[in-house]
């Protein structure tokens, strides 16, 4: 059952979304600041909503799909907030918040897992999972930023016509350079988190099970993802790949991540023993 923190969080996220959209149309800095403040407060309350849920199910948020989605939404919002404050670019909030709200709604209002006790796995495992979720939140945000980049690039390349230059929000979109830097920043966060998360997972497996299963499809997929995003980071600031091609690469890589994880989780989940 969603508790009071969930309702407060939802209200704050919705307020933040409304303010981000208003900022996109009005361009008023104050509106942008209020949107950021509402998001920060929403994040704060979301933490307690996660805690509330954990108390209810007597388990960590990532123990079931819905909790994982809520945690994913929280981390996505957290990374976005960090990037927004670093790059002073609030106009992306209007695109990120719907995703965060949907994840939060699914995580908090869909599925009511019965209170159950889960197996105690320790702090290392918790960090392993949380960092992995953080990594995917970073990649998801990079995907979103790259998609906006591609739309913006396409828009700037089109001949001006009454239809495509009339909307006031068009003048508030973040610049291409900013989108590119934010996407790279987001991928960097994701890569660091993924390396740390995978490292902790391997260490935890070795520590508790006294073995390392490198043929685990999830470990292999992780290595492929690391290679792809590493390649993106290297190529995106160079010659022929800079700009739209890099953005397309980033977006496609994320789709590949989703696809491969779907395959691994649906058909090969028995190999990754802790899901």
């Amino acid at each position, binding site marked *: 059952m969603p508790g009071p923190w969930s309702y407060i969080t939802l209200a704050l996220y919705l307020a933040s979304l409304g303010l981000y959209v208003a900022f996109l149309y*009005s*361009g*008023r800095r104050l509106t942008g600041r209020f949107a950021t403040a509402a998001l920060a407060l929403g994040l704060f309350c979301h933490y307690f909503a996660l805690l509330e849920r954990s108390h209810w199910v007597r388990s960590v948020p990532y123990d079931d799909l819905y909790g994982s989605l809520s945690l994913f939404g929280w981390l996505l919002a957290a990374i976005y907030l960090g990037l927004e404050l670093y790059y002073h670019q609030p106009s992306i909030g209007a695109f990120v918040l719907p995703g965060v709200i949907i994840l939060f709604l699914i995580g908090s209002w869909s599925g009511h897992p019965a209170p159950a006790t889960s197996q105690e796995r320790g702090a290392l495992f918790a960090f392993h999972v949380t960092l992995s979720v953080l990594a995917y939140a970073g990649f998801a945000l990079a995907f979103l930023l790259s998609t906006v980049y591609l739309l*913006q690039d396409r828009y*700037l*390349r089109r*001949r*001006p*016509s*009454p239809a495509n*230059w*009339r909307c*006031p929000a068009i*003048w508030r*979109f*973040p*610049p*291409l*350079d*900013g989108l590119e830097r934010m996407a790279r920043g987001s991928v960097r966060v994701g890569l660091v988190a993924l390396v740390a998360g995978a490292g902790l997972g391997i260490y935890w497996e070795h520590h508790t099970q006294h073995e390392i299963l490198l043929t685990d499809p999830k470990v292999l997929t992780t290595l492929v993802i690391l290679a792809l995003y590493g390649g993106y980071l290297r190529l995106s600031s*160079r*010659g*022929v790949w*800079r*700009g*739209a*091609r890099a953005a397309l690469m980033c977006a496609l890589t994320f789709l590949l991540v989703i696809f491969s994880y779907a395959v691994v989780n649906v058909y090969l989940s028995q190999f990754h023993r802790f899901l």
Partner: protein
Amino acid sequence: MRIVLVGLNHRTASVALRERAAFNAETAERASKELRSHWQMEEVVVLSTCNRSEIYGVYGQDAELGAIEAFLPQFHSIPPEQLNGSLYSRRDGEAILHLFRVAAGLDSMLLGEAEILGQVREAYRRAADSGATGPILNRLFQSAIEAGRRVRSETELGARPMSAASAGVRLAERIFGNLEAHEALVLGAGEMAEQVVENFRQRGIKRLWVSSRTREHAAALAERFGVEALVWEEMSRELARADVLVSSVSSPEPVVTHAMLVEAMAERKNRSMLALDLGVPRNIEADSSSLYNFYLYHLDDLTEIVEQNRIAREREVPRAEAILNTQISKFEAWYAGRGAADAVDDLRLRLDSRRRRVLETHAEAFAHLGPEDREKIDQLTAELLEELLKAPSSRLRHARSWRDRVQQIETLRGLFGLDSEDKS
């Protein structure tokens, strides 16, 4: 109300006439002093920009409005026949509305221009500093400035670029964001190039070069704006450094070829480049638009953007007017409140003077009374007067709306002849 406006602007007067009727800081102060000392004006603000010369004032009871209207041409020694209907005058509500529209940029040549608000603020500051303003113009100008600020922040009236040059700069910001870390190369030294240079400088671009086939022209433009001049022959070599390339050269053939841009983009390692081709015929080879990370805009594209922005700005006018109406209502409510107090004071003075006269007329009838009794009669009649004034004073204060209040003040003033010469 006693607010008056006299002036001329871009709609009513030619540039030549506007130039003759313009005020600088010194002449504005002199005009203001003259109006207050010899023309029975109590408060004065002179607003003078390249598009308008206007005098806002609060006139005294004895002022002749016709004479005030004649002041502006007289001050500038402009013969009346040259005015040819250029001069306009507005009073009270119309004058207030005019000032609010001016401050909001609704009366500007370029709808929604930003500069006018600063110019109104500056004109008011100067007048206030020289002691030419009083409570009414202080409140009026502060309200108009507040209204102008609200229109700028709450509507899209001033948000979109309205010239090809400023639209180009905004496009550059759409690609690069803050221009403080970027460089631009401007080819040509004509009027369009000048506008572009001015716009880029205002947006704080890191480095700006100007290059023209006539070296002296480029040097003169560069010197005027404090930017760098580049020898035309070196242009193709420096092309790779420019994040923004602007070309407005009069040339039958393109001055920037596809091959030059291919080389420049390779040297830039495909970092984005924005090219604004403002020349007619085109200065940049059209097939360059297919180059990767190269954004090419022609003059027609920018003109189309400006046209869309003009339409969008016009759509914002009703919203801006709604804001102005709110702000004007606030000012008028304040003014009406002030008027109510003034009307009651005037009525008190008028009736008190009548009371004294009646007492004096009947002084002989009270001759047999001692000084204490006469004092008591004086006090009683004064108290009776205050008692009689309580009801109208309270009704004026608690009028349902400022419009009712103004109407009641007008009735009161009319019934008791408070605005007539005879104050007795």
